[in-house]
């Protein structure tokens, strides 16, 4: 997560309302397929907000007859989805549509295949990244010089806990739980103090469940780290801590 996350915030909002198209849509779908929790959350929050807004008007009595038809149909139909009938119906519809407009169907399938290929490629990339990350984490645990620092939630993040595995040469890893989502335009920043001044070791946003993982690069340590803390910072980043301390050692 960094300042370069824009324009995905905009894409996420527009995607939720179905307005994204063209290259923007393709770029966002590829990005989403990499597992960006921030974007998935934004899309979901925007969909929820739109649903609430759409239902905020006065109710309107539905037309007569619809309920009766539905209830009668449901009573006659088995509880389980009639997948066979649906499948036959869909195939018949596809054949009819194909006869009517083969080019249109082919174009749609090509587009879908293209999208599936992009998603498969992104999934493969994600798997390779996960494997590499797991390898690094195991090495960190094996390293006898690794030490564990616990950070605890401060005002506004009570209950949040982070554990930081830290080495002087190979960097480290932050694992946080129960962190609230930062306000729009803000991210969490991890700071290390090894010399006189703090260095930012990375910025992050937790997922829906308040969990976050951040790899700490070796250059963020390099010397014995004396202090670790997490603050709330603007999305564009900061050279020194400016926001409220969210996680700190006891």
């Amino acid at each position, binding site marked *: 997560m960094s300042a370069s996350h824009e324009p995905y*915030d*905009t894409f996420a*909002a*527009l995607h*939720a*309302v*179905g*307005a*994204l*198209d*063209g290259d*923007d849509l393709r770029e966002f779908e590829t990005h989403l397929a990499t597992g960006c929790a921030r974007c998935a959350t934004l899309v*979901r*929050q*925007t*969909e*929820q*907000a*739109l*649903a*609430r*807004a*759409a*239902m*905020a*008007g*006065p*109710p*309107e*009595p*539905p*037309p007569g*007859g*619809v*309920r009766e*038809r*539905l*209830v009668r*149909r*449901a*009573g006659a139909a*088995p*509880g*389980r*989805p009639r997948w066979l009938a*649906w499948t036959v119906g869909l195939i018949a519809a596809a054949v009819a549509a194909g006869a009517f407009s083969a080019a249109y169907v082919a174009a749609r399938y090509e587009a879908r295949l293209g999208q599936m290929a992009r998603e498969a490629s992104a999934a493969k990339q994600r798997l390779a990244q996960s494997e590499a990350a797991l390898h690094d984490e195991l090495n960190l645990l094996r390293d006898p010089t690794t030490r564990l620092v616990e950070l605890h939630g401060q005002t506004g993040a009570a209950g949040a806990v982070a554990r930081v595995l830290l080495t002087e040469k190979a960097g480290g890893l932050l694992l946080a739980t129960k962190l609230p989502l930062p306000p*729009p335009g803000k991210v969490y920043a991890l700071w290390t103090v090894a010399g006189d001044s703090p260095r930012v070791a990375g910025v992050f946003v937790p997922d*829906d469940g308040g969990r976050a993982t951040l790899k700490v690069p070796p250059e963020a340590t390099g010397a014995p780290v004396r202090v670790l803390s997490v603050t709330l910072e603007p999305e564009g980043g900061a050279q020194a801590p400016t926001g409220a301390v969210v996680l700190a050692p006891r």
Partner: protein
Amino acid sequence: MLNGADLIHQMAEGDAEAFARFYDRYAPLIYPLILRILPDAGDAADCLQDVFWDARQRARTYDPARGTAEAWVVTHARARAIERMRGARRRRDSGRRGSPVVPSAASPPGALDRSLLSRVFERLPDPQREALELAYYGGLTQTEITARLKQPLGTVKTRLRLALERLREIVRPA
């Protein structure tokens, strides 16, 4: 009283009574949305019926962790109505080649206008509300809105983003 997620769960088990209760609870709330997108009462009624039948068939796929029952059914209702509206638009376009029809989302149908306009959308600044209504009720993409409003693409994106940010603030649960 059972919540929406419980009703969906029971629907998935084939409970016809739960299905009827689900309809009674949500049909009056989503019917205005469908009418806003499909002003023809016959189309809107057919769409409403499709939405609830779909909900029954898709009940097993509902995951409460991914959103509320309200959002689940409203999102699907809107998608179904837009799909139906686009189908009608394509049929009209093929009937009069060279004069594509853009739905009049910013100028909604007559008598029902005031009662159907979402109170929340009315709290947005006019340029943002206009862009959002074209997208949400009109089913237009950013490119289509750009052509419709004769505004640069960047302006349309910004208006939509700001509208949706404001919307999230307005409807945020207390």
